[in-house]
């Protein structure tokens, strides 16, 4: 399940209030997390995150509806 990984859940939470660059996301973590870019690409492939280019920056934004579906799938897997 896409959100089984803690880093992906954190990324989804961080994007909830607006788009961010990968650098902003990495800095928002309380402690260094490896593979933020990798986890972003997984979320991108699943359609939970979308991206656009603004000047020299690539920005990532949440598709809230798809994030909700992914969260519900994760919660369904709980006993």
């Amino acid at each position, binding site marked *: 399940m896409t959100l089984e990984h803690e880093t992906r*859940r954190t990324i*989804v*939470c961080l*994007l*909830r*209030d*607006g*788009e961010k660059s990968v650098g902003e996301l990495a800095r928002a973590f309380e402690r260094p997390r490896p593979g933020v870019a990798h986890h972003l*690409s997984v979320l*991108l*492939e*699943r*359609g939970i995150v*979308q*991206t*656009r*280019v603004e000047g020299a920056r690539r*920005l*990532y*934004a*949440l*598709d*809230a*509806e*798809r*994030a*909700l579906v992914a*969260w*519900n799938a*994760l*919660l*369904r897997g*709980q*006993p």
Partner: protein
Amino acid sequence: MIRVFRAESAAAFRADPSGPVVVEGTDRTELEATVARLEDEGRLSHDEARTIERALDDVTGDAADVVLAGDGRIFRVEGEAPASAAPLEWFATDRVSPVLVVCGSGARALLIAEALQFLGYNADYAAVPQDGAALLDRLRQARPHVAVIEEALLVACGSRLLDLSRRGDVIAIVGLGAGGPDGVLETPLRLEAVAPTLERLLDRVRKARLSPSVA
């Protein structure tokens, strides 16, 4: 202009759209007809055609680049405003009042607290053994406005929880699964069902704490 590209690798999928355009146009009806024709001609696979249709549903403007990958089963859209992160009806409006999730399993409590945090709630979690005294102690320490408590713990605690919620700090008790005196969040939890319950209770507790006579 809406253009559809086919990425040959994961790196190309993430990079700026480039390479041959699979299909392009500004009129959606025409684009869909072109996709159907290309599928008939075998120039687009069934998966690619369906994925393009889904991608077109996601494109809100008339200028976007769609990139296909994974044998045509996945896509991303670039060049238009991204999906809105604006609050939907299931996001929290009260992001301050403390909510505590209490379960017998710490992992389960954490996951549910994270889900509530995703919705915007100021949620924390606690794991307590299946005995009522430990649960009451935890609630007295944490002083949440709303406690979301696993059904089994509610059963263990019984009416003592009601006493707690009616004495001193007002706490609304929501059962996780069943049985909450103030509300229930059914399991498996569906996040779109959370806000109607929590918003109502947080509002009630906030008013009660400001004006004890309301409680």
